[in-house]
């Protein structure tokens, strides 16, 4: 016999979420928490804008702010085949230009910093930016970094609920590497913002496959490429993932309907991403494929030259890269370590504490793996995990020099995994001694498990409609 449908469990699932007529405008944790995270992050970032150490790389990004206004002349001198235009993709420069204009500055800034000479020579040559330009450019990054924190909240929230989201967002907001780079005029914050938006879109696409989400994902990958190249390459393994899903669905290892709707959308990603990349970069227009190849070649060659120029920070292989990442994110840039040192420093100055960011992130890896197995390879969780692993893998494999800013995307991944690990521990603690004791704030608490409803009566004929109607005799603890 076919089981009848039961309406018994719908109270919590649809009455609050779906019935808009009953929505009341009130301060909800789902809005309050990300808002507080944004305020926290931007406050910290802005506080460091005036004090963070100057890095010559900042002058290059400020110098290229004119790229934004030069978009009006996409065939002008700025976009000819030359070292500066080929050396870095333009999106970070667009952001600089837009940000300067919004703050009342213009895009005519300093000259190009020549790293063959020291600060004094470059200052005389006009390569040092004005202090007002430098601070304005840094403020742009401070805002971008704070937005990235909010997006990270939504990612972890989508995976495992608001506790995970709050933990992930908080960790990133206080992460010393994130704060440092968010108070410098570089393009790495834009990269992690785009990467985090990509991850969030991947979750949505995987859960509800649709052309709009697929188009948005491809556009974000293309824009990520226009910021820092590596996200563009992620579109290729995504296409392979789509093919893999279709194959697995054929042999019954993946949900067939979901795989058939998601697979083709993933296969189209390289095309969408590449078109977006080209459209965003006028330098590529005369020869999209040839010049794209040149851009990647130039970048690869520069990494090799940096590795040769700074042998002390050269990275020989991916294992070496992993070791460097561990050292950096445990001893030099650890949010939990810094926080503990600050607190313990009130009592005993100079205390050095081993940070547990990576430990909880390792727990988060296990949680994420479990979620992927539970939700399936064709789910949004699996798609996001694949992308996140791809981004981290690209950095680990491609890193040739141990520059601090190259670790920022890894810090992003650590923050998300940290959130998942925290959620697991929170759940474990909450299941001991009653859940209510941990219900500190509505919306960031452990909800007691809901007992499933059961049908006692079946097929009672409703004489008024002529249809059979379910009438549950008992419902769960709603």
């Amino acid at each position, binding site marked *: 016999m076919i089981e009848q449908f039961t*309406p018994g469990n719908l109270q919590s699932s649809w009455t609050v979420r779906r019935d808009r007529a009953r929505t009341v405008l009130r301060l909800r944790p789902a809005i309050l928490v990300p808002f507080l995270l944004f305020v926290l992050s931007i406050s910290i970032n802005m506080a460091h804008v005036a004090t963070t150490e100057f890095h010559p790389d900042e002058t290059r990004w400020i110098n290229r702010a004119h790229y934004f206004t030069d978009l009006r002349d996409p065939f002008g001198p700025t976009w000819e085949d030359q070292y500066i235009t080929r050396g870095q993709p333009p999106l970070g420069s667009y952001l600089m230009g837009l940000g300067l204009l919004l703050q009342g500055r213009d895009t005519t800034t300093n000259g190009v910093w020549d790293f063959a000479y020291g600060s004094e020579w470059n200052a005389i040559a006009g390569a040092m930016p004005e202090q007002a330009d430098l601070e304005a450019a840094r403020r742009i990054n401070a805002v971008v970094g704070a937005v990235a924190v909010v997006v990270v909240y939504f990612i972890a929230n989508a995976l495992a609920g608001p506790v995970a989201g709050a933990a992930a967002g908080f960790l990133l907001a206080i992460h010393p590497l994130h704060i440092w780079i968010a108070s410098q005029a570089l393009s790495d914050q834009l990269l992690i913002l785009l990467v985090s938006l990509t991850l969030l879109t991947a979750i949505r696409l995987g859960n509800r496959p649709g052309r709009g989400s697929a188009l948005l994902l491809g556009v974000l990958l293309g824009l990520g490429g226009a910021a820092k190249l590596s996200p563009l390459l992620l579109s290729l393994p995504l296409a392979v993932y789509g093919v893999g899903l279709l194959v697995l669905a054929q042999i019954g290892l993946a949900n067939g309907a979901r795989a058939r709707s998601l697979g083709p959308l993933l296969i189209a990603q390289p095309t969408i991403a590449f078109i977006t990349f080209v459209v965003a970069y006028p330098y590529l227009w005369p020869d999209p494929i040839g010049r794209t190849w040149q851009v990647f070649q130039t970048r690869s060659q520069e990494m090799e030259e940096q590795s040769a120029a700074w042998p002390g920070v050269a990275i020989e292989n991916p294992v070496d890269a992993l070791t460097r990442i561990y050292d950096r994110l445990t001893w030099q840039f650890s949010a939990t370590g810094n926080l503990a040192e600050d607190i313990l420093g009130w009592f005993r100055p100079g205390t050095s504490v081993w940070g547990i960011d990576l430990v909880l992130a390792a727990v988060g890896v296990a949680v994420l793996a479990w979620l992927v197995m539970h939700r399936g390879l064709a789910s949004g969780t699996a798609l996001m995990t694949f992308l996140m692993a791809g981004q981290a893998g690209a950095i680990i494999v491609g890193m040739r020099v141990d520059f601090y800013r190259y670790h920022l995307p890894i810090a992003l991944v650590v923050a998300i995994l940290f959130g998942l690990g925290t959620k697991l521990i929170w759940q474990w603690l909450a299941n001991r001694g009653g859940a209510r004791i941990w219900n500190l704030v509505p919306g960031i608490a452990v909800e007691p498990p809901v007992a499933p409803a059961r049908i006692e009566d079946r097929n009672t004929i409703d004489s008024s409609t002529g249809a059979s109607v379910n009438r549950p005799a008992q419902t769960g603890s709603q």
Partner: protein
Amino acid sequence: MPIKISAALLSLIIFAAVVFAAFRLVNVVTQEHDGWDIYAPVDVTTNPLLVEPAGALTTDDQDTLNSVVMAGRRDWGLPWSILVAELPGDGSTGESAEEIAARRMAVEPVESSEGAGDGLLMVVTVPEDDRARTDVAFATGPNFYPKGGISPERLAYIADVQMVSLIEEGRIGDAVVEGATWVLWTQLFEPQPNPAATNLQRGLQDLLVPLGAAGFALLAGVVAASAGAALALTLRGSATTPDPASLDGVTAAATSRGRVDRQVITGVLLDALDRGVVVLRPDGSLSASPTGTTTVRDRDSAMLEAIARLNTGDRNGIDAQAAQMRHDEVLRHFLEDAMATGGYFYPGSPRVTRWLCWIALAGIGLGVLATVIAVAGDSAPAIAAALALTVVSLVVLIWNDRRSWATWVGRRAVRDWRRAHTSADDRERVLYEVIVGMETIDLLPANASPITPGAQPLFSILNS
């Protein structure tokens, strides 16, 4: 035209583009490269530095200048040489630096190979009696430009401005090193001047600005306006006012989803199974209930006819049957007609959707073509308009494929129905929620799913 044919056309276009791109990529990757293309090392026919007489510059200055010139040749692909000549007198008579540069370049050209004509000669003349009147000039071969950011104006700036202060101080060696360094810096860091427009580019620019750009922008407006018109027509609907008594879970869900899509048809089948109109036979196939006691609606009759149309020789399990029914156009059209008759859907929606699909496809095709023409013509306004046309058309195509066919009155009727059916016992409301949220029901935990655990396997089969 059915949506699947337009998808096939789009796929064909994308496939052609991908094949072309693949060939081009292979060509690019297999091409021989020597360092950075724009900065391949060069050998030059002349010595890097000539000092006449040899004592005109100190040994240290000469060593430094040799390094600078060789770095330019080796690292930045600049074929150049420097001549420093000490002249008798105070520089008021005799050849100027410019004349000397032109003569030396004609007699012994600086170039990467014989006949290349691609070199640069920097000449510095130092009057013996008045070193402050040191003069600087540059001579280039006929094929020297373009060379990074170097231009005649910038070379003149180096000579007339950037070297002047050191020359006035009598520090000739330092001034020449300074000037040579600025030449390299200019090549690397100044933007390269645009080459002159070709005849084709000039012709296209005349055509594209303003007519072409205006035309592309107008087409984008037409596509957007067509989408707006489709939306307005749909919302206005027909004169029929929905009857609240006819509104049930399936009708409300179809109105909310905006289409009679696979989820709605699955919901119709689920409803029929739940009410006992359709039963699952022991062999796993669907059939009408043998008892005939349950009330059969018009929708149920259409469902039963669809079941009867299933290929009797190929009557597979319920999953295959459900899949066939979801592709049954007769059933779909019946349901759509019922929605239109009831005032929930705009009756002309299929025709409007087809037209809008063609308009959007035409917009995409024209937009891509216009973009290519605009790039060939180096016309920024035309590119902006062409991109706008392409993007707007693409967005309209995607939106049109999924847009709602529900009328304004239909949506209001469903809104009122939802407000009136809020009880967790309400079967029709349950059915509505199942259909509306069908894509993500399987992601819900068991205790939050509207489907009982026992019915989950059947639901999964029907929804696969």
